[in-house]
């Protein structure tokens, strides 16, 4: 062509549009993206191999399960990927929900065996409910008295749970007086509602209390959800009724299955109810129904496989990660060592973090997004806070450990390595992460929602509570779960505040010295015995990663649903 000769030189002419260079560049970039993923995947396979030791089993055992479980599941996965995309997600959620539910159930079992009796739980829930009732009633009948309301907000839960004045306060006064040489004998106090309930001459049996304070509230929540979704109050009540009947069936079925009545109640609440609601939704929407087959095939496969293996007499593997590992304490002999007390420590640490950091983080995010002025000296202060939060997120975790050591242990003189100190130190570490993710979630609520609410005459706080927060909740939850995942794996702060290398007994209270999962794993990593290094250590790592996987998977599912609705 005439236009491409010397007069009109254009960019790229000399290389004749070199495809090869572009392709090579693209391939290099892809390889770089995959590099980290693939190397970590290989390492994970090594760890999993150490933890489960599948090759210590008979070849026949592996072959049987490969045929009954792996092949059908792989075929289903390919089918979903190729032909029925929504079913893939349904399969993912229906397989994941039972795992999350079982983890929650396990958490409550730990709670009831280590921390509280069912009666204590019952009393605590009832008195808190009474306090909330008082606050709501006060808000309804005496509105517009700010100071009085603040007093009720603070005092009602205090009186209901701790009594007036609280025991600790009495001890404090009596001790101080004794130190001054006085005997004030402040032994009289109004007992709290919680203590009053615990002193009742007759006590309902454990399962009744669980039914009243755990199953029914959760069932009510599920019923409310179903009722909202189907826009029918009757359907909601049906859901509550079905849950209650299923729970009551446990009176007979629980002992028969071997989980006991209480175990059955927990399972119904945290496993059966969520699965039921989800499956009902999938069936009704008629989208990706094929995904429901996945967990059924998995369970059937395992069942058939175990029958076959039993009949043919194949020996299974001897994994390091087994039930005994999850339920026993650390021991000098590798085969007896387990992670149970450290798991309890981690769960309790998470409770401290959720109670302390989550409200503060969300509160700060609300202020920064909804209230913060952008001008004046307050505006400058807010800018400073924003920059500061960004910087705090980048402070090394070991420094937070140092902060916890200096503040809680050396100044406040709380016990070294206790759950509360660990929870608060790690809580401060994830505070900026929670604030930043909650800010993003709040920012994504469209402004028109707020304008509509103001237009209806709502105040700013009413708008936040009834419009902004419900809209932003899924985003806030996603961010919080991811941050909690980070918290579970943090080790350096635990080392600095002196968490125990390993404990024989699970902690009983928040001021007890405890070990946490990563701390326990770290102390195993310095053992020289190969049975520890390649066995117990690998089992601990896989346990920790499994917990994280479940948490992150939950967060991702919440995020996906949330994004689709937008």
């Amino acid at each position, binding site marked *: 062509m005439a236009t491409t000769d010397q007069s009109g030189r254009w960019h790229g002419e000399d290389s004749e549009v070199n495809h090869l260079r572009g392709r090579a560049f*693209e391939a290099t970039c892809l390889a770089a*993206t995959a590099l980290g993923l693939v190397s970590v995947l290989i390492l994970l396979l*090594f760890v999993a191999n150490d933890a489960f030791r599948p090759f210590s089993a008979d070849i026949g055992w592996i072959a049987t399960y490969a045929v009954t479980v792996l092949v059908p599941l792989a075929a289903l996965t390919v089918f979903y990927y190729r032909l029925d995309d929504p079913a893939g997600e349904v399969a993912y959620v229906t397989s994941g929900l039972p795992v999350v539910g079982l983890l929650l159930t396990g958490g409550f079992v730990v709670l009831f065996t280590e921390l509280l009796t069912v009666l204590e739980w019952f009393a605590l829930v009832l008195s808190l409910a009474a306090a909330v009732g008082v606050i709501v009633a006060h808000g309804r009948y005496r509105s517009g008295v700010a100071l009085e309301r603040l007093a009720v907000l603070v005092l009602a839960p205090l009186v209901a749970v701790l009594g007036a004045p609280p025991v600790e306060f009495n001890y404090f006064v009596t001790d101080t007086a004794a130190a001054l040489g006085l005997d004030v004998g402040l032994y009289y106090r109004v007992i709290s509602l919680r203590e009053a309930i615990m002193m009742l001459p007759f006590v309902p049996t454990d399962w009744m209390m669980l039914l009243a304070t755990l199953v029914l509230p959760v069932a009510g929540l599920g019923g409310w959800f179903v009722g909202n979704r189907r826009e029918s109050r009757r359907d909601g009540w049906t859901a509550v009724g079905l849950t209650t009947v299923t729970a009551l069936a446990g009176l007979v079925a629980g002992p028969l299955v071997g989980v006991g009545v209480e175990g059955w109640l927990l399972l119904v609440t945290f496993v059966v109810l969520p699965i039921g609601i989800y499956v009902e939704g999938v069936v009704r929407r008629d989208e990706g129904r094929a995904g429901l087959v996945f967990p059924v095939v998995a369970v059937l496969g395992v069942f058939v496989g175990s029958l076959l293996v039993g009949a043919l007499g194949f020996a299974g593997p001897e994994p390091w990660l087994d039930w005994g590992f999850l339920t026993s304490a650390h021991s000098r002999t590798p085969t007896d060592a387990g992670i149970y007390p450290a798991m309890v420590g981690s769960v309790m640490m998470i409770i401290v973090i959720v109670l302390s950091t989550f409200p503060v983080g969300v509160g700060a995010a609300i202020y920064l997004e909804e209230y913060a002025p952008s001008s004046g000296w307050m505006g400058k202060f807010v800018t400073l806070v924003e920059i500061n939060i960004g910087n705090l997120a980048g402070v*090394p975790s070991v420094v937070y450990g140092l902060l916890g050591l200096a*503040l809680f242990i050396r100044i406040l003189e709380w016990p070294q390595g206790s759950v509360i100190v660990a929870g608060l130190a790690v809580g401060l570490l994830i505070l900026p992460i929670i604030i930043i993710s909650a800010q993003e979630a709040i920012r994504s609520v469209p402004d028109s929602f707020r304008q509509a609410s103001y237009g209806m005459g709502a105040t700013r706080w009413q708008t936040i509570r009834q419009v902004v927060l419900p809209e932003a909740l899924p985003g806030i939850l996603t961010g919080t779960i991811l941050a909690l995942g980070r918290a579970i*794996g943090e080790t350096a702060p635990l*080392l*600095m505040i002196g968490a125990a290398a390993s404990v024989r007994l699970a902690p009983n209270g928040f001021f007890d010295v405890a070990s946490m999962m*990563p701390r326990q794993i770290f102390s195993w990593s310095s053992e020289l015995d190969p049975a520890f290094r390649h066995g117990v250590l690998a089992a601990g790592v896989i346990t920790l990663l499994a917990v994280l996987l479940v948490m992150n998977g939950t967060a991702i599912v919440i995020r996906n649903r949330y994004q689709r609705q937008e």
Partner: protein
Amino acid sequence: MSTETSGPDITSRPSGRAARERMYRYVLLLCASLSILVTLSIVVLLARDAITFFGLVNPADYFLNTEFLLSRGEFGLLPLLSGTLLVTVISAVIALPTGVAAAVYLSEYASERMRSILKPGLEILSGIPTVVYGIFALVYVTPFLQTIGLPVNTFNIFSASIMVGIMIIPMVSSLSEDAMSAVPDSLRQAGYGMGATKFEVTTGVVIPAAASGIFSSFILALSRAIGETMIVVVAAGSRARMLNLSEPLQNLWQGFQPMTAAMVQINSADSVSQLGFSSMFAIGLTLFVITFLLNLASNRIAARYREEYE
């Protein structure tokens, strides 16, 4: 006036409601101010013990001494800095090019489907606890390096740094990708209009236009590598030593003790003198100042590129 009192009272007790609104505002403001309090208490509490330390040890001695040995009362920062420097440099060599290439792939080449697989995958890399990376390095990577014939010790800085590098790849890639996505499409279109190939547009237009964002992600990743604790505690050993400048390659195969690892070691030592204990806070303060400055610089640079295109 009659007109004001006769109308229906639609705001019931406005004063009480206003007071309540104020109360919520102040409670929330308190939550937001807590972050400032955290920073302040980090600075004050670390400085308190660091000052005790510098009262007993000459600052010049701390910054210039080439020995760090608790048992002999030697508190030189230089050997610890050597360890930190090595970790940072090796992990940067691994993570920076890889991270940028990954960002290029994700923002310019990847199909929607590939993105939906690779992006969460990279997020998972940054979600793995660092103690697990340390165990990878100690139990799997080091023996592997020994079998392929590298003269590494059981505890060495090389395998720890490889793992630190892999850990910070997602940080580089996600922030760089954000920067590349922020480059306006019109710039790319202009490049294509000039007859440039995709490769030329990517390397000649997108990467230079996103340079400040990429640079800010580098700084943040380096700061993360400097503050990384568990990987080096588990895999890099507990002996602080100076860089061997005459045979640079030898450094890789030996154990070092970066600042973070030294702090953990001091804290978990059975008997440590008061002076040793306060040296931990001096090291902590040094680490805090370094990372804080780096983060500040990174934020500044990132803010500048956001201004450019938004």
